[in-house]
């Protein structure tokens, strides 16, 4: 019966992981807009570049005289 105990602990940890992921997703604003992403993924991604990368790039540009 020790196996049951072991499984239960694993079960709580896994479910807790999903809860944490959910909380992160809500805080991150992923539930704020439930329409645009569904449309966006259908567009041909020609040149939309990574947002973060662009910021850091242009920041570097600023540092140069």
């Amino acid at each position: 019966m020790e196996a049951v105990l072991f499984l239960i602990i694993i079960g709580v940890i896994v479910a807790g992981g999903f809860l944490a992921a959910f909380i992160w997703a809500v805080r991150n604003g992923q539930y704020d807009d439930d329409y645009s992403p569904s449309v966006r993924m259908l567009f041909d991604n020609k040149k939309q570049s990574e947002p973060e990368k662009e910021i850091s790039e242009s920041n570097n540009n600023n540092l140069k005289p």
Partner: protein
Amino acid sequence: MVKPCVHCGADCGSSPVVWEGKDFCCHGCKTVYQILNENQLGEYYQIQPMSGIRIDSGQPLKRFAFLDIEEIAHKLIDFKDGNISKIKFFIPAIHCASCIWLLEHLDTLHPGISYSTVNFPRKEVQITFKNDQITLRQLAELLTAIHYTPEITLDQLENKKISKANRNLLLKIGVASFSFMNIMMYSFPEYLPGGDLLEERFKNIFGWLSFILILPVVFFSANDYYLSAYKGLKHKIISIDLPITLGILALFFYSSYVVFSGRGIGYMDSLAGLLFFLLIGKWYQGKTYEALSFERDYKSYFPVAVTVMKDGEEEIIPIRDLKKGDRILIRNQELIPADATLVKGKGSIDYSFVTGEAMPVSKKINDFIYAGGRQAGSSIELVVEKAVEQSYLTQLWNQSNVKSESETLNNHINNISQYFTSAVLLIAFSASAYWATIDIKIAVYVFSSVLIIACPCALALTVPFTFGSTMRAFGRRGFYIKNTDVVEQLYRTTTIVFDKTGTITLNRKVEVGFQGEQLKDLETDLISNMVRHSSHPLSAALNDFLPEAEENFPENYEEIPGMGITGTVTGHRVTLGSEQFVTGIITDAPMKESRVYISIDGQQRGYYTFMNSYRKGLTELISDLKKKYKLHLISGDNDAEAGNLRELFGHESQLHFQQSPVEKKQYIQQLKKNKEKVLMIGDGLNDAGALSESQTGISIAENVFSFSPACDAILEASRFNRLGKFIAFTRSSFKVIRVSFFISLFYNIIGLSFAVTGKLSPLIAAILMPVSSITVVAFVTFSIGWLAHRKLRFDNE
């Protein structure tokens, strides 16, 4: 054959604008198509064909010069770091997948734009751009060039709102569902045959695990219910949240007692499940239309900046800095932001939105002009008399119009919950009193069992799901309500008050008729050539009405203010204007409508009449509503149409004309004193006070995303004739609620019969509670969906 415009899908008419073999309805649409084509953004038209936005050529282009002012730009920009800025624009025109695609490919149109993201429900686009390559003003102008005009108002400038209330509820639901699923697993062995054989050790572990998992549910997910029950008690109201709170606490304390005494896990699974369902109900009810605003005041209507003349030079200043004595320049279609005196130019002020007067008012030099009107015609200059906040109308709109809390709390469901709560407490006490004579332990158990099983979960879910479904059914059909309380207010309505201008009549649209001998085409061409040069509103209306004529410039053209125009076109002398001006006769009899008399080559030919045009289906709507409600009409306009309206509304209705915004508000107050439940429907700022004073204020809008005064509901103008059906539908909603109450009462009686006999087991609770909730939810959502399909089916759908 109808040729749709490649850009916007509107009918191109007989003479389309053609470019590269494609038809367009106007030059505006063609220009946008050209811009997109040059930048290889043609895919816009493939995602959703003909999805472009049309801007009528009559509308003047919005000016964004004020965005060059550092102070304003600073307030609008969300984030600025060195060369990078982020800004959010509200763009009411966003409506489809193509819009998202185009607005997220703005970087193709201008290298200064790094990237852009659309939030569709909010109709917002967030743009990150490089300051050295594009200014804020250029950005706004770029968006306007492709017909996605951003809306920038004083309101946005002053208070940036970010609502995050919805996230909190989602978190609560997430936590409740996590605990519910896990506790259910631990409870499961108890429900199986042989569950008693489970080792004592496991029972203990399961009990303690459940206790730990229930804590976040009781102390985080459920806290809104405690707060609301407490608030209700403070106002001496037993709200539905009180029995819920009692149930939650009884479940929690009894189950904790079971866990601590090492006898299992009690009703923990039912408790978590109960809250999970209740919160789902709350979420369903709480749907909001994020892009709509029900709380607007004059600040969302006023411009952000105004042009001031300083030493003969134009300068743009933020409206906040406008002082008494400043000389301001107001161009065609611009708004007058403060009470002022006219010093230069000819004023023709359109107050239709502010006072309800249908026709623009002429103003001479030195006339005093109230804030809020729009200039129609050439530019004028004014000297400001009062600061913006102190202007007559702004002060009026500023009057606080908060509905008292008790008024909203005291609704149908809470009335029922008063009886319900007292009945439950009575049963709990009498049952435990009976058992106390036998065994005090059983008495305590029975008392808590009754509170547990009577927890009105199904009852509490009925209203959110019924009203939530009703709200969605309305929203899909062009009637947007602020929250679910409005459904109940609509149901209770006894009196309906209408505004005239813009509500039952169409703004900026008049019906032109002609009295006299039929004019020849050649003669109407002469008139058309005359009115083209006059900025008078009646001339403009006539110009729109008459067929387009070959252009011939009139000679000896003369416009006499307040009288009419005269001139010679292709050798014919044409005179148009007032009766006195054209015929020389002065009649004192009050006129039913505005008239323009015509004389050609000295011969009187008759007169054109101008009447407000009523909304489609008005007659049917009024005759339908007349049977069930008391109808009133309060108009800020003159009584020129009183005869027509009297016929329409019938003799029992009350019609009032030339009512100021204050009088309108007082009128509603008077009706409320007579215990009437008032529904007010209006459109302009002049109705703002009355709308907020009435129990249900509905504002009617051609475009629901553009400005509308603070209200409880927004109705799409095209659905105006369906108003009666929407109100009638709330009666169906209440029927559904009543049936659903009986269903949940039935479950409660079954549960109580177990509880009072001391036989309630966790298994029975675990089955009965979810089953009752699910039946009720399924019943109400399907009935409302079916009823809405049957009763709200409109011909054009």
